[in-house]
């Protein structure tokens, strides 16, 4: 479990996170939703220690994250940020192999190779494995990064807008992969999402942010409803049940 206790982050005088407390349960997909600048990505970065915090604590399985050394941390929790347009020419297999770096330090053993193969299989990239990243489509490239995280084999996987710039087909593919990771391998996935309907269809738990605070958290039924969403986004919403899913109309 990830436990966030009254975390504060401020840039100058502006508080981007104001006393945020949150518990993220194991074995679930938890989505962070909310308008731009609400602090979702900032919190994700603080949990994963990419940026520092100005107050509060973060616990990972009951342990303060600040005390964990880099390498052990990289075996427990992985993070993928928004902009992964690398200008580094690597093949898919090379990128995925780097996911094993926390374990192998570069010398791949049989066990590492198994993990790499499994990650390629999971993301259906076996045929593209020897292609360079810049030869792939946007969706394939995003899958390659997710494959790397799968090879990293961490209990917790944090993703910052993994569906950014992807078309419908590729977005669905990615979300299905993430669902399988949770269902079959028991991973804990935390995602920052912009598309509310994707959050509604694929999450177990949703946390709604606004102005640096958590407005409301709960399961899909509790969050995906007119009152909560109108409060979070300051926009008119119509929410309907379609094929047992809650779908929002806000256009």
């Amino acid at each position, binding site marked *: 479990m990830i436990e966030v206790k009254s975390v504060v982050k401020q840039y100058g005088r502006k508080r981007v996170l104001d006393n945020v407390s949150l518990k993220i349960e194991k074995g679930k997909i938890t989505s962070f939703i909310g308008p731009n600048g609400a602090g979702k990505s900032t919190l994700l970065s603080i949990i*994963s*220690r*990419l940026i520092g915090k100005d107050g509060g604590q973060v616990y990972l399985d009951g342990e303060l994250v600040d005390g964990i050394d*880099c*390498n*052990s*941390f*990289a*075996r427990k929790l*992985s*993070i*993928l*940020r928004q902009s992964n347009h*690398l*200008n*580094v*020419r*690597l*093949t898919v297999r*090379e990128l995925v192999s*780097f*996911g094993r*770096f*926390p374990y192998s*330090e*570069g010398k791949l053993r049989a066990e590492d190779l198994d993990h790499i193969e499994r990650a390629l299989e999971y993301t259906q990239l076996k045929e593209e494995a020897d292609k*360079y990243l810049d030869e792939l489509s946007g969706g394939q490239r995003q899958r390659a990064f997710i494959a790397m995280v799968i090879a*990293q084999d961490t209990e917790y996987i944090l993703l910052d807008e993994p569906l950014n710039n992807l078309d419908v087909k590729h977005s669905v593919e990615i979300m299905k992969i993430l669902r399988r990771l949770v269902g079959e391998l028991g991973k804990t996935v935390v995602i920052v999402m912009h598309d509310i309907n994707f959050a509604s269809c694929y999450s177990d738990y949703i946390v709604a942010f606004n102005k640096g605070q958590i407005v409301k958290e709960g399961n899909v039924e509790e969050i995906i409803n007119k009152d909560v969403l109108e409060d979070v986004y300051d926009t008119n919403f119509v929410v309907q049940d379609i094929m047992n899913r809650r779908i929002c109309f806000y256009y």
Partner: protein
Amino acid sequence: MKKPYLLVILILLSLLSLFIGVRKVSFLDVLKLENAAIRTMVLSRIPRLISLILAGMGMSISGLIMQQLSQNKFVSPTTAGTIDSAQLGILFSLIIFPAASPLVKMLLSFFFALTGSFLFMFILRKIKLKNTVIIPLIGIMMASIIGSISNFFAYRYNLVQSLSSWMQGNFSMVIKGRYELLYISVPLVILAYFYTNQFTIAGMGEDFAFNLGLNYKTIVNMGISIVALISSLVVITVGRIPFLGLIIPNLISIYYGDNLRKNIIPTALAGAVFLLFSDILSRIIIYPYEIPISLTVGILGSIIFLYLLFRRKA
């Protein structure tokens, strides 16, 4: 798969390099252990060959590491202020300790090169606009400023001539006893080889490196130190060699990608081949005279550089 080709070309060019020169030395003379022939070989030809190979490998690997760590394909020791800082260091050692040994001069030059490179990396971190073209431009501007400081002091202390001998790469002055410092670059290149995976990961950005449990700052600091040390060794023994660190890694990356584990050896070999080829050309074009190698490298390098630029657009 292309590695053997490069190695074969390197060996052929090495042999050719040994037998080109004003004093005619034939293969047979060497085999017969003729005194004059052996002396020419040991005193001049072999030192020249070794320094060419070491400088070629060192500069191309420095460029490779620099490009990877700055995440920019146009950065190299010449466009990041490293070389100019090394020159400033040599000048200072000439002014302050004129009688110092080459090793002391090298250390001072290394210290300057290190400071200059870190200054560049610091500026890189501070700029918001991470445009591909802006970054090397800033490096070149910084290098020019450092270069003009060198010129100013060189004028004040009547050292313009000494300074210019380090400005232009030149292998004709390399003889036994004047190039051995370059051997220090061998362990550095080997050290770089052991850290190739770390350099590749660091090249994907600080967040990316952190996610994989890598201490980004340590790796960057180590990479920059290796680059600064190799650069100052090369500048103090043979002088400034332009373009090499820029074009060779780019050329090799087309065929081998950017995984350093895969491309570091081809890059080193190609750097040596390119420098050796340029040197042979400089020695035969106006035979029995020589044109400075920096001129040959500059012309060949700029042609290849243009090719790379046009290729990018296509």
